């Protein structure tokens, strides 16, 4: 069966799961219906593994299958829907299917007592569906559609516990912030569609390479430099990735998204959906000009560093991981921006494994914490606050073990997957700084800022990850009562953890050679950096590759030292207690407070943008009804009415003026003698008498 058909089956199965759960989920007995969803997802995993095996069997770096249909045909304008299967697609499919399946399994236990249990699995289904859609799309329009659907499922899942205002807010925030990024993406798509007349990646790249792009720009926007427009197109499409992958300045939604159930955080907000931005950047990589790449790299680098600084001070278990995710996504984006294409995508895969592991393991802790708190009838203590944990190592050995593996992996310690990808990224930034001279970043001699961000973030990452471990699993238990009730999570939760733990080691990624630095692994072979299609002043890939080779060992050693320093610091502070963290915080003062409060980004947005904007909206609504409608429209109405009355009087005067003159005179008289008219007969009688007397007097005199 061709890969395309397989991928289409993979696409449709989770949708069936969604529809099934929405329409019939409630009618099935609890703990029955979800197995249908799980079976469907496991089927997709099986199919993905079949595809993967086929890929390894073929071992073709240039493997590629594509098929499309005409979705919208307006004669002069067409939109296609199509499937593109190449090695990247297959790897991504496996990652998504794997994490999704494990999360499905894990959720059975985790969400056991949830009121909307079936709906939860339905939403997982539509999420998986949309994620597959993003993965197999062969054009920008289709990826945009699924992009939005992913946003929808994220909205639904973050807001799963919508009774909590914070959860409902977080869902809305995620959707809207993502949409802001999507505007950019949509504009980029419009540029592409207008100039190149297609959404299809391959056709688009061909047209750019062949000069049709330049001609199109000339025809439509004469005077605009085609290369500038291409840069803009790239940057605009990348804006979608900024939103979805939570890059600065649109990162604010991801930490809030932790309001959703923890398996959801693992699936969507750590492993797959947020990686969609990276995946998109991977897909459009060939059209990025050096300027656009510099932008991408700077955004990614800054985000990596920026988010890491926030993660240091957070006390909420999931918040630390959330900022860590933002930071790691920044790494991937930076890698792509520096031209380390393979490293970026590689980090996506390894990160998906160990970050999903981290989230699921923390979910295991939180689940048990919650359990204990429920038993203690304590509804006030925060089950996610690390300050209530400590010493859990002995109670939850499996969780502790896999958490430790994942932390080593994310910190970039050899023999773990993170080391491979992270090292490649850092080497990439080093090479970029040293050997690349194109793009405004390099031309401004700011290239070295990227390695600085990279290594700085690596240091901080190692520190905060071990801070997390030490606070949670080591030391004295801070709450003895909770501690007493803690125990290891059930099997259905620990098995996925162990699977992911295994996948966080280096073995699976360096096959067939076990040399992690050899560059002969299947991944390095099958994922090939595509040729850039930028016509003029293209990115210097050869120089970069050369630099990469040179930078490899220095970067590796530096990163090892940096990770060691980070871990060492954490040991010093939290195990040996040589340094008091409270004193440190006091000494750092403003830096500490800034970090703790996420550098006040939310407050800046709220007070700087959202509130004034809402005020503006209120003003507009007020203007519309109370001022414009009331004074202008109704005012016109009133004027016209007055005018009509006036005209009526004037008309009467002209037409039967004489009669009306008499009338008016008598009206005046009447008005004058109005006071005489009392309506009392006796008054009238006395007037009559007075009249009689006057007549008499006149007669007499």
């Amino acid at each position, binding site marked *: 069966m061709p890969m395309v058909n397989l991928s289409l089956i993979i696409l449709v199965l989770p949708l069936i799961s969604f529809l099934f759960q929405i329409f019939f989920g409630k009618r099935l007995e609890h703990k029955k219906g979800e197995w249908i969803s799980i079976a469907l997802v496991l089927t997709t995993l099986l199919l993905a593994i079949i595809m993967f095996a086929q890929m390894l069997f073929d071992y073709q770096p240039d493997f590629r299958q594509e098929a499309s249909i005409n979705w919208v045909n307006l004669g002069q304008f067409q939109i296609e829907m199509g499937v593109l299967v190449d090695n990247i697609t297959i790897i991504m499919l496996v990652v998504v299917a794997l994490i999704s399946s494990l999360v499905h399994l894990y959720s059975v236990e985790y969400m056991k007592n949830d009121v909307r249990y079936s709906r939860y699995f339905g939403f997982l289904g539509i999420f998986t569906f949309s994620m597959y859609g993003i993965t197999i799309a062969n054009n920008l329009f289709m990826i945009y559609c699924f992009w939005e659907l992913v946003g929808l499922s994220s909205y639904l899942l973050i807001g799963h516990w919508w009774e909590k205002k914070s959860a409902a807010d977080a869902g809305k925030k995620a959707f809207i912030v993502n949409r802001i990024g999507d505007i950019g993406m949509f504009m980029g798509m419009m540029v592409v569609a207008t100039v190149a007349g297609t959404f299809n990646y391959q056709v688009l790249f061909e047209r750019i390479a062949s000069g049709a792009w330049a001609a199109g720009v000339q025809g439509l926007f004469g005077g605009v430099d085609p290369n500038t427009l291409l840069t803009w197109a790239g940057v605009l499409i990348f804006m979608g990735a900024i939103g979805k992958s939570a890059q600065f300045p649109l990162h604010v939604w991801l930490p809030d998204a932790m309001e959703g159930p923890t398996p959801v955080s693992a699936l969507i907000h750590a492993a797959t959906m947020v990686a969609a931005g990276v995946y998109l950047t991977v897909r459009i990589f060939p059209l990025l000009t050096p300027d656009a790449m510099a932008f991408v790299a700077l955004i990614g680098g800054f985000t990596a560093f920026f988010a890491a600084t926030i993660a240091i001070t957070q006390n909420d278990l999931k918040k630390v991981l959330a900022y860590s995710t933002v930071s790691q996504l920044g790494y991937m984006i930076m890698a792509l921006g520096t031209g380390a294409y393979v490293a970026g995508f590689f980090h996506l895969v390894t990160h998906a494994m160990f970050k999903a592991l981290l989230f699921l393991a923390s979910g295991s802790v939180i689940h048990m914490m919650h359990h204990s708190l429920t038993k203690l009838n304590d509804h006030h203590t925060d089950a996610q606050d690390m300050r209530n944990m400590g010493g859990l190592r002995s109670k939850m050995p499996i969780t502790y073990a896999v958490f430790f593996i994942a932390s080593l992996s994310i910190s970039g310690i050899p023999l773990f997957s993170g080391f491979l990808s992270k090292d490649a990224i850092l080497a990439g930034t080093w090479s970029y700084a040293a050997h690349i001279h194109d793009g405004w970043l390099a031309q401004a001699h700011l290239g070295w800022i990227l390695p600085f961000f990279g290594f700085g973030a690596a240091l901080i990452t190692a520190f905060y990850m071990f801070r997390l471990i030490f606070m949670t699993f080591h030391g004295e238990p801070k709450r003895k009562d909770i501690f007493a009730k803690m125990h290891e999570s059930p099997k259905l939760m620990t098995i996925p953890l162990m699977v992911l733990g295994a996948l966080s080691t280096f073995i699976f990624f360096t096959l067939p050679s076990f040399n992690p630095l050899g560059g002969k692994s299947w991944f390095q072979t099958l994922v090939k950096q595509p040729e850039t299609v930028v016509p003029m002043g293209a990115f210097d890939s050869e120089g970069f590759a050369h630099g990469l080779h040179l930078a490899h060992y220095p970067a590796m050693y530096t990163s090892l030292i940096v990770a060691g320093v980070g871990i060492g610091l954490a040991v010093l502070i939290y195990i040996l207690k040589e340094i008091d963290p409270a004193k440190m915080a006091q000494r750092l003062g403003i830096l500490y407070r800034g970090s703790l409060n996420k550098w006040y980004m939310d407050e800046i947005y709220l007070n700087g943008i959202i509130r004034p904007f809402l005020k503006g909206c209120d003003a507009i609504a007020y203007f519309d009804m109370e001022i414009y409608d009331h004074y202008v429209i109704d005012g016109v109405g009133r004027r016209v009415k007055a005018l009509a009355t006036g005209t009526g009087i004037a008309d009467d005067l002209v037409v039967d003026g004489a009669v009306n003159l008499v009338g008016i005179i008598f009206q005046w008289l009447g008005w004058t003698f109005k006071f005489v008219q009392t309506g009392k007969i*006796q*008054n009238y009688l*006395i007037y009559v*008498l*007075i009249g*009689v*007397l006057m007549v008499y007097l006149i007669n007499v005199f």
Partner: protein
Amino acid sequence: MSEVIFWVIWVLVVISAMIVAYSKNLIYSVFSLLATFVGVAAIYIFLNADFIAVTQIVIYVGGILVLLIFGIMLTNRIAVAKINQSSFQTSLGMVVVGAVFVILVITILGQSWPVLAESMDFDSTVGKIGTLLFGDYLILFEVASILLLGALIGAATLARKEL
């Protein structure tokens, strides 16, 4: 003797009429009106108009006055012993009415009335009135009776509650 009686009655009529006009209590007004009517009937006697005098007694005292009393009783609460009535525009009315009265008096006194030398003495006016009424004034009489009938029906209709 009859001269004295005449003037006594004259004064009585005027006083009772003044009470009618000025009394604050409506009941007093009605009863002085009775006195006025009776007094006027007596004046008719002095004017040799026996039939008119009797008619005056029968219709005014027996009919109209009873009607008036009924009117008062129907439109005021019986429990209120003193049925007050108020006036307005009294000073203006006084002036105007006074002026009218003065003019009337001036006219009456300033006029030389063509009074016949010997006053006519009637035996009885009833026969003459009857002859006239069923002779020259028959049509008028019939019209008057129709008027009365109309008034009767009209009054009865008007007085019904549901008009």
